[in-house]
C-alpha cells in the first residue's frame, strides 16, 4: 500500500470574468511509505492546489485521492488524522505564544497538554529553538523561527504523511539550512512519508527520493533526480536539475520563484 496515491485528479477554479483555470489536470502520482517526493513547479502551476486536495481542503472535480489506502474524499476524518502540513505562510495566532499555538494545534488532533509538552520540548531542542522564546508571541519571532514552529506543529501530531508546501521559501540562507536539516532528520528518524513542493532545486535534489516537475497543472515527469536529469541530457552531458527544470518548463528558476502577483 502506498502512503499517497492520486489517480487522474482534476480541479478547475472559476475566476472572476468567467474564465476557468485548470489548476490540476489529470494528476497521477504516488508516494511510497517512507519516501520523499518533491514537486518542482513555477508559480501558479498547481502545487498548493495539489497539497490542498490531499489535505481535504479542496474537493477534486474528478479522480481519486488515497492516503494509506483510504479515500480522502469519502472518508476525510480518517485521512486527516494521519497527515499534517507546513505551508509557505506560517498561519498562527499571531498574538499567542508559540507554546500556546502548539498546544492548541495538538489538541485538535486529540493530543493533550500533558502528552504534548515533553514532545514539544524534544522537537524544539531538535530544531535548535530556544525554549524560552516559545513563550513569546508568534509575531515577535522571525520568519525562520515561525517556520520551525510550523514544522513542530506538524510533527506533534505524529503524521505518517507530511505535506510541505514551500517550507523554506522566503527564509534567509541560514534558516533555510536549519529547516532543511530538520526535514532531513524527520526523514531519517520517523517513518513519515513526505510530499515536498518547492522552487528550490538544491532542496529538491538533496531531500527527495524522486522529483516531479509540474507545469500548468500537469506533472511532466516524476523520477529519481539523476534519471530526471538524464532525460534532458544533450550530447551526453548531464544537465543540472536547474537546467532540467528550465528545459522542461520553459521558465528560468528566477521566474519560477518570482514573487506572486
Amino acid at each position, binding site marked *: 500500500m502506498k502512503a499517497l496515491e492520486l489517480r487522474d485528479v482534476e480541479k478547475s*477554479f*472559476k475566476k472572476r470574468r468567467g474564465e476557468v483555470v485548470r489548476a490540476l489536470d489529470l494528476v497521477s502520482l504516488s508516494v511510497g511509505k517512507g519516501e520523499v517526493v518533491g514537486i518542482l513547479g513555477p508559480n501558479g502551476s498547481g502545487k*498548493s*492546489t495539489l497539497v*490542498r486536495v490531499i*489535505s*481535504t*481542503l*479542496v*474537493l477534486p472535480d474528478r479522480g481519486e485521492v488515497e492516503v494509506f489506502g483510504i479515500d480522502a474524499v469519502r472518508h476525510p*476524518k*480518517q485521512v*486527516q*488524522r494521519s497527515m499534517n*502540513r507546513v*505551508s*509557505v*505562510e*506560517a*498561519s*498562527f*495566532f*499571531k*498574538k*499567542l505564544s508559540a507554546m*500556546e499555538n502548539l*498546544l*492548541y*494545534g*495538538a*489538541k*485538535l*488532533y*486529540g*493530543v*493533550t497538554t500533558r*502528552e504534548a509538552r515533553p514532545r514539544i520540548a524534544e522537537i524544539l531542542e531538535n530544531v535548535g529553538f530556544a525554549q524560552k522564546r516559545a513563550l513569546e*508571541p508568534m509575531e515577535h519571532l522571525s520568519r525562520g523561527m515561525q517556520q520551525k514552529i510550523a514544522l513542530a*506543529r506538524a510533527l506533534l*501530531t*505524529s503524521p505518517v504523511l507530511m505535506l510541505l*508546501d*514551500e517550507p523554506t521559501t522566503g527564509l534567509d540562507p541560514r534558516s533555510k539550512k536549519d529547516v532543511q536539516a530538520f526535514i532531513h532528520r524527520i526523514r531519517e528518524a*520517523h517513518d513519515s512519508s513526505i510530499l515536498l513542493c518547492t522552487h528550490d532545486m538544491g532542496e529538491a535534489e538533496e531531500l527527495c527520493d524522486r522529483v516531479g516537475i509540474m507545469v500548468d497543472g500537469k506533472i511532466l515527469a516524476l523520477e529519481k533526480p539523476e534519471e530526471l536529469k538524464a532525460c534532458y541530457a544533450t550530447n551526453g552531458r548531464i544537465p543540472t536539475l536547474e537546467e532540467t527544470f528550465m528545459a522542461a518548463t520553459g521558465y528560468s528558476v528566477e521566474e519560477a520563484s518570482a514573487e506572486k502577483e
Partner: protein
Amino acid sequence: MRGTVKPLWLTEMVAVWGYVQRNYFLTKRYFMWEVVWLVYVTINAMAITYIGAGAAEFGNIAINTERYMTYLLVGALLWNYLSMLFDVLSETVSWERWEGTIEYTFMSPSSRITHLLGMGFYAVVYGVLQTALTLGVCYLFFDLDLSRANYWGALLVLVVCSVSLVGFGIVAAVLPLLSPEKGQQVSYIVSSVLLLVSGVYYDVSVLPNWMQAIATVSPVTYALEGGRVALLEGAGAAELWESIRVLLVMGVVFVPLGIWVFHLGEVYAKKTGKLKRSG
C-alpha cells in the same frame, strides 16, 4: 512515535478543550482590551438605564421610574450577552481567516460540531461572567426594582436562550464561507435587525406589524420576555414556560439546522476554493 490510540469521544473532548483553551489564551493576551470592553459595556448599560431616570420629564403621565430603569437595564444586559454570543459564533470563520489559521483548523480531524460547540461554550462562560460583573456594578449604582425577582427563573431562561442563540450564530457563521466579505457584512446586518425588532428597550407591540412578524422568529424576543417577567414580576416556572418552550424549540431547531447548513457551506467552500485563496 505514534501516540496511543484514544477512543473517538475522548479525542473530540480534547479538541473541545483545545478550542476553549485557545479562546482563553486569546482573552488573556488581549486582557487590557477585555477590561476596556467591560468598562464600555457597563457604561453603555448605565447610560441606557439613565434614559429611564430622565423619562418622567417628558409629559405628565406618571412613570414608575424604578421599574422603567430596571426594564431598560435588563434589556441592555441581555442584549449585550446575547449579541455577544451571536457575534462570537458568526465570526468563527472570518476571524480565523483573518488570523490565517483557518486551513489548519479545517484540515484537523476534530469534527465541526466540536469546533462550533467549543466556541459556543466559551462564549457562554465568558458572557455570563461579563454580564454578572456589569450587573454587579449597576446594582450598586441604581435603585432597581428587583424586590420580586425570580433569579433562578431568569437564569433558566438565559441558559435555554443561549442554546438557541448559539444555533442562530452557527447559521450566520456559514455566510462568510459562501462569500468571504459579504457574508460577514450580512451577519452584522442580521445582528442589528435583531436589536431593532426583538424589543430590547421597548415592548415589541409598539413596532409596526411587519417588524413584529420578524420578532416572532427572533430568539432574543422570547429571552427578553421571559427574562423580564422573571426579574420584574417574579414569574414562576409556570408563567415562564411559554417563553422557555419557544426557546427550547428554537434551540432544537437552530442548532442542528446550523450545523447542517454549516456543513453544506463547508462542502461548497471546498469545492469552489473559497476557504482560503493564497500560497
